[in-house]
């Protein structure tokens, strides 16, 4: 009886939800001509970028992306600051027991493949789904795997902060170069190239590589700080 009631309620709910959503018309133009048409048109005709989302995130709204990267940097810095105080009091690292030899050798095999996948994703950010943030996160998971598998695997914090600072500075420098050449911050000043080629889209590819390096360094540092509270 109860199950029958549940099914009845679900059927009524489903019917009404379907009735509500079937009238919406997905993929149909519901708004008047506006900024979206500008983006959709200029992405292919002027920038020669296959991925519209990337062109909006990095080129049309590149300044927002710079802000996002800064927010991530601030979050990681705050996390490091909080954990730094705890590091002197708390004892061991937070992995309870050492991993088995299967995990060790397996992660040694998989680590280069994961790094390669991350690099592939952020290099092809303007051609396929994904980009700097996603690729960087994947690279950080590779380092997480190695840190879990090997107790004595260590990452140099100095190298990480150098990579991160260099990537951030390069992002801003590219923006300033656009300022000099085109007139606005992060303006595209490189040749657009051919659509669907690796070297297309002007500065988008370069910026996404830099974002990928920055995010990877930040997240790796964060994971390392969390795992090695003693250090």
């Amino acid at each position, binding site marked *: 009886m109860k199950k029958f009631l549940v099914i009845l309620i679900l059927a009524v709910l489903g019917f009404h939800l379907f009735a509500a959503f079937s009238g919406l018309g997905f993929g149909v133009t519901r708004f008047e001509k506006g900024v979206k048409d500008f983006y959709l048109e200029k992405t292919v005709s002027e920038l020669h970028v296959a991925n519209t989302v990337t062109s909006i995130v990095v080129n049309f709204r590149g300044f927002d992306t710079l802000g996002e990267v800064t927010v991530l940097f601030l979050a990681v810095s705050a996390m490091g600051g909080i954990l730094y105080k705890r590091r002197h009091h708390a004892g061991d690292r937070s992995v309870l027991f050492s*991993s088995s030899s*299967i*995990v060790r050798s*397996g*992660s040694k095999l998989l680590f280069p493949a994961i790094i390669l996948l991350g690099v592939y994703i952020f290099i092809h950010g303007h051609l396929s789904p994904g980009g700097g943030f996603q690729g960087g996160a994947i690279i950080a998971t590779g380092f997480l795997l190695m840190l879990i598998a090997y107790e004595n695997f260590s990452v140099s914090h100095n190298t990480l902060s150098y990579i991160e600072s260099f990537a951030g500075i390069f992002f801003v420098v590219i923006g300033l170069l656009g300022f000099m050449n085109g007139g606005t911050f992060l303006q595209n000043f490189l040749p657009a190239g051919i659509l669907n080629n690796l070297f297309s889209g002007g500065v988008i590819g370069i910026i996404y590589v830099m974002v990928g390096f920055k995010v990877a360094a930040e997240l790796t540092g964060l994971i390392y700080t969390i795992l090695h509270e003693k250090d």
Partner: protein
Amino acid sequence: MSTLFEIIGGALLLIGSAFLFLGGLGIFRMPDVYNRLQAGTKATTLGGMSLILGVGFLMVETSWMWMAKAVIIVIFIAFSNPISSHALARAMYKRKQYPLITSKDENMDAYKEISENEKKEEDA
């Protein structure tokens, strides 16, 4: 008329989806961690592999690159999925989540003896 490659690909897709469904059902239905791990990792390893190979076979006439990529992904799954399930099972055992045994047969927990011997050696 469909070609041989398309028939093989379709069959692999069917097998893969059947195994993935069974894996999902097993996670829902099985009683303890180890049984669920078995359903959730062994079945999905085979299911995922045959799904991806099936896509490769379906697209092999369009471009052989699809097949090459599919084979690389299959190799990756063959490495990563068993390793992760091993790590999960080992972590569960170390957290003293022993297998659910309804019968009185103690021999079902074969790893218990090994780990107790290890502990004795460590103590000695």
